[in-house]
């Protein structure tokens, strides 16, 4: 059961196309998994379209020429082909939300981190960093907080972070106000997709020693 959704402002930026690429991608992946937000977005698109296309600016003659040129173009049958890319890790296959499928093929392999964690970086060319992260049963990310913001989408399985529990499809925003330690006890572990714009800041125990190297860890 999905309990956490993008905020209204995030959906609004997405519908307008004013979101940054990373945020747009992870919101889009959530929409692939969440019927509730998808119907909300459809409504928002309807009313935004009506609003944005309410006013008219009269056309000059160049537009008549434009119209003539357009009808000379051939029909393009066949849209963007649908991909059926899955993500493989440790003999398991994960079906990804549509929005993320194209990126599964761009992973250069998984690296095994401390604490039963696996991480695969995806180069989106955006500011910040995007990763698929897989936590094995009993795995955890050392306690940390955030200098910037961290958007996480739970793709498969469930995890907790000492503050609450998260389930498949949940959309989570963390920033400097939140200190947490994600871990999972689910037999199947947990796969998430996350985008951070600044390195994490580790807050407890030995993990603090990681801070100077956190750019190597989660950027």
């Amino acid at each position, binding site marked *: *059961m999905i309990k*956490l*959704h*993008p905020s*209204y402002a995030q959906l609004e930026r997405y519908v*307008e*196309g004013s979101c940054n*690429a990373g945020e*747009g*991608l992870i*919101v889009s992946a959530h*929409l*692939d998994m969440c019927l509730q937000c998808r119907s909300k977005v*459809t409504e*928002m*698109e*309807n009313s*935004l*379209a*009506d*609003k*944005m*296309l*309410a*006013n*008219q*600016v009269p*056309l000059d003659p*160049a*537009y008549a020429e*434009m*119209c003539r040129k*357009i*009808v000379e*173009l051939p*029909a*393009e*049958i*066949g*849209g*963007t*082909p649908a991909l059926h890319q899955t993500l493989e890790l440790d003999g*398991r296959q994960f*079906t*990804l*939300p*549509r*929005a993320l499928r194209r990126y599964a093929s761009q992973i250069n392999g998984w690296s095994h981190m401390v604490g039963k964690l696996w991480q695969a970086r995806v180069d989106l*060319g*955006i500011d910040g960093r995007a990763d698929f992260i897989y936590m094995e049963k009993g795995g955890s990310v050392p306690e940390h907080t955030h200098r910037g913001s961290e958007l996480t989408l739970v793709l*498969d*399985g*469930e995890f907790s972070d000492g503050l*609450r529990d998260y389930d*498949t499809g949940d959309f*989570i925003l963390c920033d400097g*106000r939140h200190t947490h330690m994600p871990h999972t006890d*689910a*037999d*199947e572990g947990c796969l998430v997709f996350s985008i951070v714009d600044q390195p994490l800041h580790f807050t407890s125990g030995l993990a603090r020693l990681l801070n100077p190297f956190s750019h190597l860890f989660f950027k």
Partner: protein
Amino acid sequence: MLVGIQLEDRQTRTSVPFEVVEEMAGYLQAVALRRCQRSFSKLFSHFAPRLRSYALKQMGNEAQAMELVQETLANVWQKAHLFDVDKGTPSTWIFTIARNIRFDMLRKQRNRKEDICSEDLWPVLCEQTASPGEISLDHQMTLQQVGVLFESLPEKQRLVIEAIYIEGKSQQEVADDLEIPLGTVKSRTRLALQRLKEMLDQDD
């Protein structure tokens, strides 16, 4: 820590009259089926001045506004068959095409190396829209075949599979019965199906 926001309505619709919606949908269909130029010019006269207004506001200069209008309406002409009357109105479809093209234009302008393109974010011109991924069993795999292999599944996975595939319960019902989260039911199902598939592959 979270953004678990209750969704609510904040915009009221400045509604387009129903007859106009119907009329435009008819033209789109005529373009899709017959490449009807007359219908396209109707669409053009209706939408180009509106798109021009949108484009001028978004792009801030005449040349780019024109490029945005042209690209949008060229897509309408070339891909009219992708318009689905059950999914929305012509103006929503055309607006979302314009929004996507604007996004890509601005991206190129910033000369960024971003690999993300608008179709990833908004699959407006995609043949198939997304359905939340479920791995389905191959057709030739019968329940009986699977049944034989049941014994070798871990008990937790077997319980879930039996409930869903033999008792015909929904994943939610199974979650409620076993008092485990839906996500766990889903992943157990997936793991079990995968395992069964592997075993069947080995049998061949």
